[in-house]
């Protein structure tokens, strides 16, 4: 019987709660719908009828950003740069964080408490402190304006939380399965790769989920390290349209198209995995 979880039906309180929730939904969702809607309109329409529904929809703004935005860069270039950095970062992050988390959960080797403490401390480091030294360091390595440089920086920034989570996961992973494999002559790595990893899809998914959003959206380091237009990512493209006055620029619909295209992959990702995402966030947030 699960009746007790519900409000006493028909009370004034319930009515008030429902009305407030509906109002808040409108406040939260309307701006996002407005963005997608506006991206399907043309500039004069956007300025004169901001509330009108884009019907029939015009895909002209999308066609234009596909060919090139105000700086002449085609959208696909930003999209590819962002995608390459995202995929590279997530792959590196998954490999390095699960290996380290597994070693810290299973191995008691000289130095392991130190390494564990070090990772916990690294959780507290704000990325801002690294900006200037990394700017010169990447410059010296020739990795500025380079996706590999961004991947290395982003992987490092994502590591502390990912390691803490994967270690916690492997601590609760049954040892017996691996031990059997070790007895059967498997190496440690073999046991990890063939037995543990295939059974650990949930932690891999959690680590990926927790990092996809911020890597795709990251602006602070990207803005500083990616000055060549052909190495830039989507957030930089979004931020580069900065006309404060709407009438001053003729590229409003293009800006909306870029915003919509930057958001769309994450929205699709969210609706496909929304249950896992919310679970992962709830579990990962409090570490």
């Amino acid at each position, binding site marked *: 019987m699960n009746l007790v979880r519900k*409000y006493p039906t028909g009370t004034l309180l319930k009515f008030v709660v429902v009305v407030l929730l509906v109002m808040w939904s409108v406040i*939260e969702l309307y701006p996002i719908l407005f963005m997608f809607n506006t991206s399907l309109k043309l500039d004069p329409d956007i300025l004169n009828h*901001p509330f009108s529904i884009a019907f029939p929809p015009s895909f002209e703004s999308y066609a234009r950003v596909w060919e090139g935005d105000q700086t002449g860069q085609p959208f696909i270039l930003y999209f590819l740069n962002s995608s390459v950095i995202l995929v590279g970062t997530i792959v590196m992050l998954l490999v390095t964080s699960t290996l380290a988390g597994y070693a810290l959960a299973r191995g008691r080797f000289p130095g392991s408490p130190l390494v564990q403490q070090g*990772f916990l401390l690294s959780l507290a480091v704000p990325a801002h402190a690294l900006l200037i030294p990394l700017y010169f360091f990447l410059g010296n390595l020739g990795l500025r304006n380079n996706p590999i440089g961004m991947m290395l*920086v982003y992987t490092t920034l994502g590591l502390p939380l990912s390691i803490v989570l994967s270690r916690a996961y492997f601590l609760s992973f049954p040892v017996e399965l691996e031990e059997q494999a070790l007895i059967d002559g498997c190496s440690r790595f073999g046991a990890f790769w063939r037995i543990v990893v295939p059974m650990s899809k949930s932690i891999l998914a959690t680590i990926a989920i927790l990092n996809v959003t911020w890597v795709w959206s990251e602006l602070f380091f990207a803005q500083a390290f990616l000055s060549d237009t052909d190495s830039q990512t989507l957030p930089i493209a979004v931020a580069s349209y900065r006309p404060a006055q*709407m009438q001053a620029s003729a590229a409003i619909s293009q800006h909306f198209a870029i915003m919509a295209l930057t958001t769309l992959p994450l929205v699709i990702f969210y609706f496909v995995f929304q249950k896992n995402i919310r679970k992962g966030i709830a579990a990962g947030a409090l570490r």
Partner: protein
Amino acid sequence: MTATEIAGTPITTYPRQLSVMQRFKKTLQANLMWYLFVAPAVILILVFMVVPIFEALSLAMYRWNGVRPREFVGFENFIDLFDDRFFMGALQHTVLFSITATLGTVGLGLLLAVAISRNVPGAALYRILFYLPVMVPITVVGALWVRILEPNFGLLNTFLRGVGLDGLARAWLGDISIALIVLMAVTIWQYSGFPMIVLLAAIENISEEIHDAASLDGVSEWQRLAYITLPLIRPVLISISVLQIIFSLKVFDLVWVMTRGGPGQSTDVLGTFLFDEAFFKRQYGYASAVAVAMFIIIFTITYIYQRVVRVENAKL
């Protein structure tokens, strides 16, 4: 338990006559696999985090424009920070922003979580929808709200004029007295879903029996909230608040896209101040001093938080 067991090497006893070097080699061999497992992560953290922190500390002692030779100035940069009213302004804005954003997101998140947890009609839908803005990139949120708040053709002013509230229409981001408040509001709009999800998970962890017992005792909704829900989710509530403070202290993207610290530095925060000093004024030493100050503030809060949370968790 033998000493080697405590140190964690596999349980093998070594003949006493082995030298230190030989024992070291044996330990290394026995644990080589583990060292290879942690090596990539350790190297990345060392090269891209630990070394840069020390470099930032050292850079903060210099005056340097990135081209000419560095000039050692000791702690002068830090002393200058305290005399720099723009830095102090940025610090003040950052703290104000963090406190307001935290109270707003956690407060709203708590209200939403409590409302949804009681199986209100459509609860499953709200839970999905209220988290959606968190997924939208901050740069997009910023750029979108710049468009919505645009004084002449923007959505908000058009709406206000349309319903006869012309007096309320204003240059939302061009007004020194309200621009920072607008930024806070946008952050609360975007992030209230985040504490909501975390608090909702905590509320749903409260066992069914407690609720059943309370219902049998005939408690009101308010009593249930005050005497059952809130006390039981208190640790999570504190954690999520500290996390939101730390997160907001690092604010950069939103301010960068919406106001670049303007008008008249009225929304400058530590992140944008640091970025400006480094990449526009090319004062790398001074900017590093800002970075070190931020590091000390955020690292201290996070470190204390980790200690407290771990102690609290140990008690549970």
